[in-house]
Every structure is written in structure tokens, then in C-alpha cells.
């Protein structure tokens, strides 16, 4: 669905922000990109909808390379919806409904159709009834949801979210991820960047780990998190429950065969097994 192949991107001072990065998102997948601050996640995401053009390499949307002219970019942006980290950078209109309507209006839809989409998107993110509120009257979590609604209203085929759970309280973070999971079940592919490793195994089909502009690991959550050395080398950590299992294995000789549980339910199953219950 979305492919970034061998992307090289340099900052103005010549440092390579991205050095031969290849990331793919297949239809109906949820992919997570893990990496520390400054590793290049946001920079990569800005390539997905043509805001940045790679110095080398190409970005393919539905198999076709992005055309960097007005028409091509509008086409890409209607298919690839990017939600940025800070909602204050995205909400610009005096009311919520005008902000959400911005995307569909730019796509040239009729006022009636736009109205339907605004209603639908706000309902999906749980912000119905907030149509006439000014964005600066909303809380952080509410602003985030409106930002997502604004992109949803364009009915993209893939949604790219830069640190969707940052700054949210645990319930807020969980609500956002539940929403993404639901959207995915309705056919939208998702790629998120995060360093919230505890939530990742619950939702992601595949992971990429990026360090200093290079992909150093990719695979399913269990494949990636079993390579503990690489994870820690990238300024990340294991999910807490996996860390517990690691300690139990090293210090208390409880054998997990290197396959640490990544979620609470996996841990419960494995512990019950080990304890013969």
C-alpha cells in the first residue's frame, strides 16, 4: 500500500537525516516505527505524503511513485493522511467543524457531502456535539481527536500518525489506540511512530526500529523484542512485562526459551504454564 524505498534525505547542513531507509506498509496492516527522539521518525513520515522529497530513493503509494506536482500531491494527500504530533500545529480554524471540514473542502466535495463527513468523523472520534467550539477551548486529548477527525474526514486509505499517544493520559492513549484499531478493522492501514513500547505489541502487526536515520531491525513484535541488545542499543526498552520475564530468566532460572511475553495476557498464559496451574 505504501512503500518508502531506500530513502536518503539530508538536512541543509549535510547531515543525513535518513540513510537508506526502506519501510513498507501492506494493506490492512498496523505498523509501528520505534526509535528515540531525533532518530528520524518524523522526517520519514513527512516523506509519506510528499511534504519532503527524498534526495535519493522513492515513495510509492498504491504501487505508483508520488508525482510532485499539484495534482499528484493532492492525490497522494487524499490517500495518505498524516496526523502530526502536536495538535496545536494542526488546528487552525475558529471552530471544530470548520477545521474538520478543511480537508474535504480542499478535495472539492459539495457542502452537503462535507457536512456529512464532518459529522461522521467527529462521531468516530467521539467528539460529536463539539462542532461549534473553538479549538483552544479543548483539552489536549480532545484536540488530538479533532486533529485525527480532520484527517479521517478525507477518507484516506492509510493513516500516518506521529506519536499519537504522546502527552495523553493512560485512558486517552488507550482510547486513541482503540480508535486506530477500529479504523484498521474497517480497512484503513495504519503506521504510527512511538516510543510507548508497552502499547505496541497489543496493536502492531509489524515493527521497525530506527536509529540515527537507519532501520536496524524489522519484524513482528516477538521477533523484534527478542533482540534485546538491538532494542536497548536504540535507546528503547522492552515492554515491562517482558523485562520482568527477562529478570526471572536470568536471576531466578525460570526458562522462557528466549520468548518473553510481550503483553499481560501472554505473560499470564506463560506464567500459569510455568507454575503448572
Amino acid at each position, binding site marked *: 500500500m505504501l512503500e518508502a524505498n531506500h530513502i536518503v534525505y539530508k538536512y541543509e547542513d549535510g547531515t543525513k537525516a535518513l540513510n537508506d531507509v526502506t519501510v513498507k506498509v501492506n494493506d490492512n496492516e498496523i505498523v509501528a516505527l520505534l526509535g528515540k527522539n531525533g532518530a528520524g521518525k518524523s522526517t520519514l513520515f513527512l516523506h509519506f505524503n510528499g511534504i519532503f522529497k527524498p534526495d535519493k530513493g522513492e515513495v510509492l503509494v498504491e504501487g505508483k511513485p508520488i508525482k510532485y506536482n499539484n495534482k499528484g500531491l493532492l492525490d497522494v494527500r487524499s490517500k495518505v493522511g498524516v496526523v502530526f504530533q502536536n495538535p496545536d500545529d494542526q488546528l*487552525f480554524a475558529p471552530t471544530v467543524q470548520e477545521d474538520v*471540514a478543511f480537508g474535504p473542502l480542499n478535495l472539492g466535495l459539495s*457542502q452537503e457531502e462535507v457536512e456529512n463527513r464532518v459529522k461522521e468523523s467527529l462521531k468516530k472520534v467521539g467528539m460529536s456535539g463539539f462542532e461549534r467550539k473553538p479549538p483552544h477551548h479543548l483539552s489536549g486529548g480532545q484536540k488530538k481527536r479533532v486533529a485525527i477527525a*480532520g*484527517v479521517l474526514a*478525507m477518507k484516506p486509505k492509510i493513516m500516518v500518525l506521529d506519536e499519537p499517544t504522546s502527552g495523553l493520559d493512560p485512558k486517552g492513549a488507550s482510547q486513541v489506540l482503540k480508535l486506530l484499531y477500529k479504523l484498521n478493522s474497517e480497512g484503513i492501514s495504519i503506521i504510527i511512530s512511538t516510543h510507548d513500547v508497552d502499547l505496541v505489541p497489543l496493536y502492531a502487526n509489524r515493527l521497525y526500529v530506527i536509529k540515527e536515520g537507519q532501520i536496524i531491525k524489522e519484524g513482528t513484535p516477538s521477533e523484534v523484542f527478542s533482540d534485546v541488545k538491538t532494542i536497548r542499543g536504540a535507546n528503547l526498552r522492552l515492554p515491562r512485562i517482558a523485562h520482568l520475564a527477562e529478570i526471572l530468566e536470568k536471576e531466578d532460572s525460570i526458562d522462557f526459551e528466549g520468548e518473553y511475553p510481550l503483553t499481560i495476557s501472554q505473560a499470564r498464559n506463560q506464567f500459569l504454564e510455568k507454575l503448572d496451574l
Partner: protein
Amino acid sequence: MTLNIDYIAQTNRLRDVNSNLKIVLSIGIMLISLISQNIPLEICVIILAAIGIMGVARVKPSIYLKFIAIPFAFTSITCVFLLFFFGVGPVIWDSGIWGIVIRQDAYNLAVLTFFRVFACFSCLGFMSLTTPINDFLHALAKVHVPKIFIELSMLMYNIIFIFLEEVETMRNAQKSRLGFNGYMNSFKSLGSIIANLFFKSLEKAESLQRTLESRGYNGEIPIYEPSK
């Protein structure tokens, strides 16, 4: 700012009345007050506006008083000056100090100006306290005010609140490190807030450009007209 006009405009009882009507009415009466020489007329306008704002729109008197306090203060000072330092006609009161006198025409002018300004501000108050900003911008668009002006206003509106918050945060951070101890220090701290804000606004402009482009921005902000 303890007077949140924006919030009041959203929550008053006249919110849903046709904004075009409110704007036309307010500006119309304001223009009439501006040209008129008739003091009783001005007083009528002041009273009507006050009834409109506090009685009909149910804005709290304390809020309206706060709103009217600043222009009231300015006008009072101006009119005092007008009273004593202008005019060329016959004297009606001599204070006896340094030849400061009140002349007849100065008196007339001062009184008229005072009520005139008050009336105009009452109209302005009525409009801004009952009309949410986006309705106002839509009305401007209908009268063919240049689109660029409206788009700039719309963008500035939201950003003002965000920046006010940031200034508050920066000020608190500085206060916590005694940045406002003493006169010279306060100026230095204020200076760095301003400089920082300048850079932040450049950054924000860049981010906003990117996020707008990501949603298909083509240079014009389209107008949304829901059927309500």
C-alpha cells in the same frame, strides 16, 4: 486576560440570532452615534446597548462593567483634557490656578465626545460580546472584504490564544527563577520572552504550512457553510 470575550460570545443568549443582523445593527448604530451631535440620542444608545447586552443576552453585569471600564477610563481622561485645555469661546468657569479655565464650547465638545465614545463602545461591546468570531468573519466575506484579510484574521485568532498561553508559561518559568525581581531584570526577562516568541512564531508558521498542505491546502482557505 480575565475578560474572556471569546467565551462570552459563544455562550450568551443571543448567540444564535442571525449574526449578519447583529453586525449590521451594531455597526449601523455605531456610525449614527459617531456622526450625531445629539446627546440624548447617544444616551439612548448607551442604555439600549446595556439592556441588550445584560438584559437580553444575559451577559453578567460584572463582565460588561469590566469591558466598559477601559474605554471609560480613557474617555474620561481625554474629556477632562478637552474640558480644560481647548476651546476659544467665552469662559464659564475659572479655576483660578494658572489661568486654567473651562470654556463653553470646550464644555460642549467634552460632554458630546464623552457620550459619543461611550455609545460607540456600547455598540462595539454588543457586537463583540454576542457574535462569535467566525460568524463575524463570514459576514466580512459576504461584503467582499478581500479574502486574504479574512484568512489572516482567522489564522491570527487561534494563534493569539496559543501564544498567550505560551507567554504565560514562559513568564511563570521566569518568575520561578526570579526573573521579575526588580525593574531592569523585568525588562530583560520580557525582552527574552519577546525574542523567543518571535522564533516560535517562525517555527509555528512552518509547521502550520506543513499540516495545512497535508490536508490539501492550495493557497486559499475554503469557506464552510453548514446548513445548521
